């Protein structure tokens, strides 16, 4: 295998890390890391959740201090005790979770912490001029007077990039930048990054998505278990090889499944409408049917009504229209809540496991009962049967390969993939007739994705109905038996998974229907 195949370059690396190690107590997060990032390139760093990518970048940005090793910026040994020092060294960081003041304007956010003097007006004026030239140079248009909370995530991310550039960053670190973006937004981001590269900026892209690495990087470094296992030219590698380097074993990138044998309808939705608190119609008459033994995938760019559909069916949002579960109509007026839905046989893996699916401060054993805590298996009268809950958790953790398999550990201390496995275990094991699934593998590492996909297919093969919502088109295509595309609160069309492709679905996702073509 071609490890360290990048030839010794003639230029001085923009960033060079030599023998960086960092331990958190007994956990060795970074082990003797050596990395050379050449100027004017896009350098990808890939690895599973917990491989140590973020720790390494936090060291580079001054959030953590390495236990040993040294950092060279443009060939000079540099100490980076805090983020101010990183900025002075020309390093900028775009975090996965943006650090913006929601009720400030774009301009105010960019100036924040980099004011020229005690008076705000001259700083703002200068920033406004600079912003205009940056926007022209890098295709980074943003309205400087827009308020952050009123612009989309794609724009918010551009503000983060502009913040770094305004502080004269030559080296830009982006941590999982596409995690929150829709495919078109991600494409735009990549255009911006290519522009930046052409202008001589150096970019470090942290991700766990192989497709992005292949698409945009020049060089890629793979991390596993705190170690840098390989650095290769992107042009000379393949997704399969990278996946293997990441996980340390062969990985199935495609889902292995037999054709579905759909039976009777389990869920029938007719003319579903939702109007939100601001009076905006989010669902505009959605109708669909999910049958036993099939996976219906809902494709679409985020924000086109998929979340609302899941929330209505899951019992946490009101709507009008008709929904029948196994022939029985469900209440949509808010009289029935999520618990009634579960009693009706509907399981729900929510889109946001941290805000909905789990209580991060609860231990795993408390989370395993969330939503099912009133069931007899977990109760002794008004008391919780804690022994039963803990035993059940240990059992589910073993069968769903949750690591570490410790029922007493708080949910927040598990990695993203293992958090999701806890939710998946809980919802699948509750024995639902219909399982609602939202973004099952968002922020989940490859090994866990493979496992979760297998579980979903197994549930289908057991004759259950599955409604899958995902913004990852690849995931929809590989898992679904039938695919419905949502756009602007409507179903634009339905296809059999075997008789469609990404191009056709992409057009539907953009709102182009057959009639219009």
């Amino acid at each position: 295998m071609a490890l360290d195949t990048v030839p010794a370059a003639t230029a001085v690396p923009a960033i060079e890390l030599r023998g960086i190690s960092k331990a958190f107590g007994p956990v060795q997060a970074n082990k003797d890391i050596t990395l050379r990032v050449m100027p004017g390139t896009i350098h990808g760093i890939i690895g599973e959740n917990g491989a140590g990518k973020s720790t390494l970048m936090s060291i580079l940005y001054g959030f953590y201090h390495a236990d040993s090793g040294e950092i060279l910026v443009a060939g000079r040994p540099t100490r980076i005790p805090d983020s101010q020092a990183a900025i002075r060294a020309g390093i900028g960081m775009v975090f996965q979770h943006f650090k913006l003041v929601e009720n400030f304007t774009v301009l105010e956010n960019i100036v924040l912490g980099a004011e020229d003097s005690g008076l705000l007006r001259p700083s703002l004026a200068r920033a406004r001029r600079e912003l205009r030239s940056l926007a022209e140079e890098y295709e980074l248009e943003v309205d400087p007077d827009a308020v952050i909370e009123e612009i989309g995530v794609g724009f918010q991310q551009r503000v983060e990039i502009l913040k770094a550039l305004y502080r004269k960053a030559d080296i830009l670190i982006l941590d999982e930048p596409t995690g929150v973006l829709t495919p078109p937004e991600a494409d735009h981001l990549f255009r911006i990054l290519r522009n930046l590269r052409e202008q001589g900026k150096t970019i470090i892209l942290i991700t766990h998505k192989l497709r992005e690495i292949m698409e945009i990087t020049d060089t890629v470094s793979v991390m596993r278990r705190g170690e840098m296992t390989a650095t290769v030219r992107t042009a000379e590698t393949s997704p399969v090889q990278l996946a293997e380097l990441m996980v340390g074993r062969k990985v199935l990138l495609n889902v292995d499944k037999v054709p579905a044998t759909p039976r009777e309808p389990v869920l029938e939705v007719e003319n579903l409408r939702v109007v939100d608190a601001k009076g905006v119609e989010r669902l505009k008459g959605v109708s669909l049917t999910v049958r036993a033994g099939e996976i219906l995938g809902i494709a679409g760019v985020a924000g086109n009504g998929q979340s609302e559909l899941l929330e209505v069916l899951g019992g946490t949002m009101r709507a009008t229209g008709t929904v029948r579960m196994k022939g029985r109509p469900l209440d949509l007026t808010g009289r029935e809540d999520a618990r009634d839905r579960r009693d009706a046989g509907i399981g729900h893996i929510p889109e946001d496991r941290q805000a909905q699916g789990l209580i991060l401060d609860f231990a795993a054993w408390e989370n395993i009962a969330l939503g099912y805590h009133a069931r007899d298996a977990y109760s002794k009268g008004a008391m919780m049967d804690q022994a039963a809950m803990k035993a059940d958790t240990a059992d589910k953790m073993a069968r769903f390969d949750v690591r570490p398999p410790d029922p007493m550990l708080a949910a927040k201390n598990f990695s993203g993939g293992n958090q999701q496995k806890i939710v998946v275990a809980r919802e699948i094991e509750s024995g639902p007739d219909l399982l609602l699934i939202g973004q099952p593998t968002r922020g989940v590492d490859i090994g866990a994705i493979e496992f979760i996909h297998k579980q979903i297919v197994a549930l289908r093969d057991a004759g259950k109905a599955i409604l899958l919502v995902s913004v990852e088109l690849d995931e929809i295509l590989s898992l679904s038996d039938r695919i419905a595309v949502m756009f602007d609160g409507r179903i634009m069309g339905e296809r059999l998974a075997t008789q469609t492709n990404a191009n056709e679905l992409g057009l539907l996702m953009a709102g182009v229907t057959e009639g219009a073509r």
Partner: protein
Amino acid sequence: MDRMPRWADVILIPLISLLLAAIISAGVLLAIGQNPWEALRIMVSGSVGSTYAWGYTLYYATNFMFTGLAVAVASHARLFNIGGEGQAAIGGLGVALVALYLPWPHWSLALIGAVVASALFGAAWAAIPAVLQAKRGSHIVITTIMFNFIAAALLNYLLVGPLKPTGTMETATAPFPEATHVPSFRDMFSFGETILFRGTPANVTFFVAVALCVLVWLLIWKTRLGYEIRAFGFSEGAARYAGIGSTKIIVVTMLISGALAGMMAINNTLGEAERLILNAVEGAGFIGIAVALMGRSHPLGVFLAAILFGILYQGGSELGLMLGIPREMIVVIQALVILFTGALDNMVRMPVERLFARRRARAPLSPPGPTRHPPGRDAAPTSTTPAAE
């Protein structure tokens, strides 16, 4: 929670906070020309040095246990009940009404009657802010504060008017009948010639408070309702997803909290004064906030913090008596303790946490406990043996 050992969290940090408060208090005492060492001696002997001292300390501690538990229960649902003062005052009204107007054959039955009445009255007083919060989103901090004033005004009216016996000058109800007098510590613990707790107000209500500490612990950590309250407190979104109704949790939690605060009146009204007097609560409702904060909303913590505040309260008044330090000065010292243990908790906590983090970093080979995980989503390599293929 997993940044340092539990003993440091529960014992070390409050201790350091107390020490800091003591040092600054010593400075204050020096500034007014008093000897801090002498003051400390008086405070300690005056609050824990004799059964007489303990009789007062535990009486105050009983008050603080009730109000501390009230704040603690509400805070588990992320509700800030500042209305303990008013709920306790109205609880006193409930105690007075049943003690005066129902015939009680024996004190034990009167005690049960007082428990029920004070709990109901306190809960009722918390119910309106609770419903306003649940249904209308009116902030519970504002409404409970307002209800403190309404309670004070209501009692003022009743105690100068309808409930005041004619011909007396005092703003209080008539004395409760003999049969409702509950045993004091003196009655309970003196034997033969030995008289303990002479002339002190501590009474059987202390054991009611201790029992409630246990019951609250059961409620919060063992029952389904407690699970739902904590789930709601940690994450409203996850609670909705789990089918835990916000209206129910807010109202039920506040009813329990109000009932706990209301029951404080058993101690001062049935147990001590044996009649309802104006301003009987004397700020214990607010001290309950500090007690809950210091006790980290855990019943055992509340119990210990209530005793500590009882010591401060009793020691402080002893200080005023012996050294002629103005009453206001003693309030300053108590305020310093509240400031350091409650409000400035993080000031002590952060450096201590960092200290432990550094110690751990230096000893990387210490046994890997299950709860030792570094912060950050990406920082902890989970065990990475390949999954079964």
